């Protein structure tokens, strides 16, 4: 049975701990990934998000939230919590642009098993070395030079592989409707 935000809120308000279980299933992974985008540390991000859920329960913060606002609320309190930590460490969070945040938020919010599957399939279709290079830069955040050194190849090879690999990913993942809308807005732009 799928529980929507209104169901979940109703359960939380009546004090059912199951409400929390369904809330976690629906949002936990997305929130952790979203927070990890700022913290670059998955286990710390899990801690931050867990703290938000506990706070939500302890302080009955869900009481005044409308079902339509639940998702935005969860993402916002998580963002605030990690921005507080970052600022405490002397990192200037105001330099993160709102549109960048929007993208991170939307992509995390709509992430589900199916999307994950699609992305994995798309990645698996790339030749192995190309996939490793894309993974190194996109997921592990190595620079071009570091990636070249890791694999013992030239920076130019990194450049070429990335351009081809990203283009193929974009073409493959462009099948998704929401991405299509976006591509439509972009016209027929291509980086090649």
């Amino acid at each position: 049975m799928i529980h929507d935000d209104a169901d979940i809120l109703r359960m939380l308000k009546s004090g059912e701990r199951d409400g929390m279980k369904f809330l976690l299933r629906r949002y936990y992974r997305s929130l952790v990934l979203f927070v990890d985008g700022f913290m670059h540390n998955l286990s710390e991000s899990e801690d931050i998000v867990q703290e938000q859920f506990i706070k939500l329960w302890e302080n009955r913060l869900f009481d005044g939230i409308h079902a339509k606002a639940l998702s935005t609320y969860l993402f916002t309190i998580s963002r605030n919590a990690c921005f507080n930590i970052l600022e405490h460490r002397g990192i200037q969070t105001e330099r993160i642009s709102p549109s960048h945040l929007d993208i991170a938020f939307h992509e995390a919010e709509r992430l589900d098993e199916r999307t994950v599957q699609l992305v994995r399939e798309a990645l698996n279709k790339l030749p192995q070395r190309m996939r490793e290079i894309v993974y190194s830069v996109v997921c592990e955040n190595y620079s071009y030079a570091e990636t070249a050194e890791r694999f013992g190849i030239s920076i130019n090879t990194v450049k070429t592989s990335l351009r081809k690999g990203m283009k193929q990913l974009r073409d493959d993942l462009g099948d998704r409707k929401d991405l299509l809308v976006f591509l439509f807005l972009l016209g027929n732009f291509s980086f090649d």
Partner: protein
Amino acid sequence: MKKKYDEIYRSLLEFWGGKFSSRQEEDIAAWLKEEPANEKRLKQLFRLLYRVSYAEKYNRINLTRAEEKILSRLPMREKRGRRISQRLYLWSGAVAACLLLFSTMFWFPEKQEYIEKNGASQILGGHSDITLLLDNGKRMVIHKDSSFVLKMDRVSVEHSVGAGLCYMAKEDSLSGRVFGEAVEYNTLIVPRGGEYILTLSDGTKVWLNSETELKYPVRFTGATREVEIVGEGYFEVAKNEACPFIVHAKDLDMKVLGTSFNVMAYRDENVSVVTLETGKVQVNAATGREMLSPGWQAVWDIEGKSLMKQQVPVNLIVSWKSGMFDFVNMPLEQLVKQLTRWYDVEFSFTDEAIRAIRFTGAVERAQSLKFMLDFIEMTSNVKCRMENKMVYLDKKLSL
């Protein structure tokens, strides 16, 4: 050309990874300025990057373990005394110290409220009395929960709880004017902190938002039905193809036959906006006209004296009439304008930069002002303080 793209692509990807030089940052900034489409390209790329990297990490998050961990640590609500130790348990080192400061606010909510938002929990919107200005210059104050009947020449006006004022023409409603009969006008004044609903003599229903005035004939006669509005109103116009309904607002006229639409034309806004929900509406301005179909909005820029149209999510714009504040990506400055009208309080920005912070949410208008201020505080780095119906908005001090 290809080489240039290669370089900018590299800068973007290294920027994404957080390992970039200041020269690369400058290159990106310059590239963004080159043409507006580049910003869209950047967004497209980042969207893809997020999707790929999120998906890659998705399975590294152990949901079952998190579920067990959180559920086992959730205190039963009754055991309030245990909260502090539970919280400390979850955190360690510097992070704990920081979070402790941050959560002080939640531990002493009563005290906080007393100092910071004195009285805000008692401030509710929608409760102010309405004034009806009659044609002979007399004023009537209408309490929302009163009911009465007014008899006028050829019209009877009924006021009831929930349905507001209802004008009923005594004869065939749209029959021509009796020779020599002057048109009689009433004006309904909804102050700040009020809202109202009214039914005109032709059956047209009008929802009036806070700080709005509507002037209308007590009985429609002649070839057109014409009313004047300042503020915001939602019209559900009774169909009569022989007799167009015309709404006059600041710098705009709307002509319709039978349709529903929203008009926002406040004195203190720099735009006037007409949004169509059903039917058709023709919007006339000094410099042009637009024909709207459902889902479209005409925006009149008062300073620039230009009329443009755009497609919008209509339900967000008209949700005020069903008791919601619905805002998507709305700058604080604009959100505050709505709160000023609804709660009849003033806002003052003590930090200019926060005016532009954007909010997304859906909140019932029946909630108190305190609830709204808490919502703003909890979802942003804005701090609210209220004294004597004046709310000061400031940036939260970082820890």
